């Protein structure tokens, strides 16, 4: 299809998202692309379409995980088209409706998709403008954009509705035009919808219980699957009793596939009973294997035997500078493995169908940060081509890095292929805790010194962690040797202190531990900032200085300093009773946080949090605030309660009775200040988690004079 030859595309019978669309328009011929790259210009034209009823159909390029991106980007579409926000019908991703989009990770949606979304909508506006010019028989530039249409100087108008009238077609946008003027990038004072807090997209569906998550998808004749899984990590299957499982009433099939075994039954209870009747015997790990799984990372032990492989920073000479220090500190910080614990345990629905000519396809409903990865993984598991797999992404009930792949969808797919019925797999909470990956453990030693003027003479940061982006979840075993050579960018995120030190050295190693590790909100940012910002606090105290002044003294970054300065104004002299921490997230988002802790029955409780946050121009202020509220709450969990534990190679923290999330009573009212500017927008969904746990730990010290260097604090004695 040659887009450039067409003024605009007319299509009849465009089918809405969520419904099967095979071979419609150009979508089916667009080749699948890796989903780590951003979208190409020719792939964005059909994201925004004018429908016959005058409403705007908008395919959201990102997964909606609760981060509010459907709201923020819909605001951009509405601004570009000069229509009210409630005229936009925002649809979630579908591999059948759009070319692959970058996976929704790393707080990159606004950074990478803001302008593309604006362009997609602007192309449609230009298409409509040329139609309006023809309709009114005027020059293109004689038309001015007004709400829902165009106007000439003489007062003649053409509304979008008029332009599409008498047509059952939808109007999509023009081919790429690099010179398009983006209305959403005007000065803040000229914007109508962008930069304002609005009613979130789909909130009315949510409060009515009507929003569909993958767990809520129901198909006619659907049956329920269950999968046998090893209790001990990595244990092999020895035997099972297929006949007994098949004798359970309501069981359709017992299916073996790629070393896994699963049940399909007419009710979820029958599937669970059959799984029990299957009586799978698992190999018991020997003491040596158990010890390997239970092995805890310890930087000091690690340094006795190993060299740290990666050295992202080597500046000046730490050794020489240390000689000139009047005080030196050697500080050890540890944070544990940590779980995503999203409220929706993952689930998938799949329907394998073969038509009269023998051609098969598999349609999947999933909740994933990357539906195209689900498509590729399902195709591989089913032994078919990617274009035979269609994936419809649903709103995700929390992801936080843990939903890059939705394994339940792949399991539903092979069970559906084997039985020919639509199958739903619904992970239990225990499965959700045990059979996904976790955020890795971090063990860090920071050696630093001070001169007579309270300046840091040298800074040496040594960490052992585990792989995140090169983890065993994403890299097959035969490539581990190569992945091990890479300084994992996820593991090291946040390891660079946001300060200027004349002499510094940062070294780290990723140890490939048996428990699968991977992305957890902010990747390394929170555990690394915990070490960096607690060390800064200890150094400030050793220097006898105010913790904010001490930080300001060591930075020459104006945006970072501005956040610290504004934080200082909020605290207004009460700094002594508060814990301070700050961070620069991925080099683009700036955060400064102050926390007050009080003791209740001897236990620390966070009683006040102030957070100053600079992510450049803010698209949707209330959504950014909500993300910051979430991050600060995660900081409370990380600092005080959360630890993913293994016991005898079994994940023992397998439900919310043993894995403690923050509760309503744990979270105070939060004071948040957004530094709104005209600078480019940067990510907000993970930035403020970076300093949160450190600020709380520093606040515990301010309240109790007890220094905690191992998280979670509630596990150690106060």
């Amino acid at each position, binding site marked *: 299809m040659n887009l450039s030859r067409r003024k605009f595309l007319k299509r009849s019978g465009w089918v809405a998202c969520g419904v099967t669309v095979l071979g419609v328009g150009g979508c089916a011929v667009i080749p699948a692309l890796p989903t780590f790259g951003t979208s190409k210009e020719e792939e964005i034209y059909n994201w925004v379409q004018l429908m016959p009823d005058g409403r705007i159909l908008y395919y959201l390029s990102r997964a909606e995980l*609760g981060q509010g991106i459907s709201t923020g980007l819909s605001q951009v579409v509405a601004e570009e088209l000069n229509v009210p926000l409630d005229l936009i019908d925002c649809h979630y991703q579908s591999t059948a409706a759009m070319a692959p989009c970058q996976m929704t990770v790393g707080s990159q949606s606004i950074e990478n998709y803001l302008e593309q979304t604006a362009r997609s909508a602007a192309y449609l506006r230009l298409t409509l403008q040329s139609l309006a010019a023809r309709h009114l028989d005027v020059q293109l530039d004689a038309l001015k954009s007004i709400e829902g249409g165009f106007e000439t100087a003489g007062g003649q108008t053409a509304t979008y509705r008029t332009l599409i009238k008498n047509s059952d077609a939808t109007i999509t946008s023009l081919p790429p035009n690099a010179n398009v003027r983006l209305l959403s990038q005007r000065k803040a004072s000229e914007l109508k919808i962008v930069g304002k807090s609005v009613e979130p997209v789909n909130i009315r569906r949510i409060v009515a219980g009507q929003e569909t998550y993958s767990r*809520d998808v*129901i198909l006619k004749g659907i049956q329920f699957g269950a999968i046998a899984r090893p209790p001990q990590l990595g244990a092999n299957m020895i035997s099972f009793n297929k006949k007994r499982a098949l004798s359970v009433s309501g069981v359709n099939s017992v299916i073996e596939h790629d070393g896994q075994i699963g049940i399909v039954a007419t009710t979820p209870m029958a599937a669970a009973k059959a799984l029990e009747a299957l009586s799978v015997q698992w190999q018991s790990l020997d003491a040596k294997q158990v010890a390997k799984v239970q092995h805890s990372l310890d930087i000091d032990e690690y340094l006795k035997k190993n060299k740290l492989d990666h050295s992202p920073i080597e500046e000046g000479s730490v050794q020489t500078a240390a000689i000139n220090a009047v005080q030196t500190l050697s500080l050890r910080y540890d944070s544990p493995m940590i779980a995503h614990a999203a409220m929706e345990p993952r689930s998938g629905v799949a329907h394998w169908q073969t038509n009269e000519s023998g051609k098969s396809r598999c349609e999947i409903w999933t909740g994933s940060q990357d539906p195209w990865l689900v498509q590729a993984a399902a195709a591989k598991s089913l032994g078919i081509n990617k274009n035979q797999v269609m994936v419809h992404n649903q709103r995700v009930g*929390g992801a*936080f890095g843990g939903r890059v792949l939705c394994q339940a969808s792949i399991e539903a797919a092979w069970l559906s292929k084997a039985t020919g019925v639509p199958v*739903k797999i619904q992970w239990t909470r225990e499965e959700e805790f045990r059979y996904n990956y976790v955020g890795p453990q971090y063990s860090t030693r920071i050696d630093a010194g001070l001169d007579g003027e309270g300046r840091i003479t040298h800074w040496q940061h040594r960490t052992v962690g585990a792989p995140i982006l090169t983890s065993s979840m994403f890299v097959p075993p035969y490539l581990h040797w190569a992945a091990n050579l890479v300084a994992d960018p996820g593991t090291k995120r946040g390891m660079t202190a946001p300060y200027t030190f004349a002499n510094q050295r940062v070294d780290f190693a990723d140890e490939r531990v048996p428990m699968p590790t991977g992305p957890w909100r902010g990747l390394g940012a929170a555990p690394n900032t915990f070490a960096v910002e607690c060390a800064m606090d200890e150094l400030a105290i050793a220097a006898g200085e105010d913790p904010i002044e001490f930080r300001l003294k060591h930075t020459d970054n104006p945006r970072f300093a501005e956040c610290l300065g504004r934080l200082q104004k909020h605290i207004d002299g009460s700094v002594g009773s508060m814990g301070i921490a700050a961070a620069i997230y991925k080099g683009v988002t700036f955060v400064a946080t102050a926390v007050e802790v009080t003791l209740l029955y001897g236990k620390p409780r966070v009683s006040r949090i102030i957070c100053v946050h600079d992510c450049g121009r803010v698209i949707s202020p209330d959504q950014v605030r909500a993300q910051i509220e*979430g991050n600060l709450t995660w900081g409370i969990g990380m600092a005080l309660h959360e630890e993913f534990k293994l016991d005898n190679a079994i994940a023992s923290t397998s439900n*919310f009775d043993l894995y403690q999330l923050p509760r*309503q009573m744990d979270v105070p009212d939060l004071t948040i200040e957004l530094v709104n500017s005209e600078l480019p927008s940067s990510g907000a969904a993970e930035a403020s988690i970076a300093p949160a746990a450190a600020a709380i730990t520093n606040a515990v010290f301010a309240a109790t004079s007890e220094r905690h260097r191992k998280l979670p604090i509630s596990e150690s004695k106060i």
Partner: protein
Amino acid sequence: MKITINNNSYNIPAEWHDAPLLAVLRDYLGFTGTKFGCGKGICGACTVHINGAATRSCILPVLTVQDASITTIEGLSKDEKLHPIQQAWIDESVPQCGYCQAGQMMTAAAFLSENPDPSTDEITQVMSGNLCRCGTYPRIRRGVTRAAEIARLNSSL
């Protein structure tokens, strides 16, 4: 066996009689607004009203509610008018991912019908049994307070 949900009666076939209420609601009848969170009655995502009382449906055998009046999130609003809790949840933009919110709202609605003018401490206490991973707790507190105001305003009209 019959059960009554949102004032309608439903037949439940024998193969679902051993199910918890939640599975019958979601997987048999299609009332998917009520969510599965933990399966142990810990997180509150599955909260429904049984004769007006907030109850966790994931551990409640369906056999025990044959004579009860069950209300789910789908039945919270009457006559197409939003329940004060739903209106307040919109006004305060409470949900993020939204998955736990049906349970939060059902807990809050039952609480407000017992205590129409609660203090913040009382709200915090009663809402501490419902988990939210996204971190919407401060907004939930504001939402419950606002819903109480809306309800008072409605009753004075």
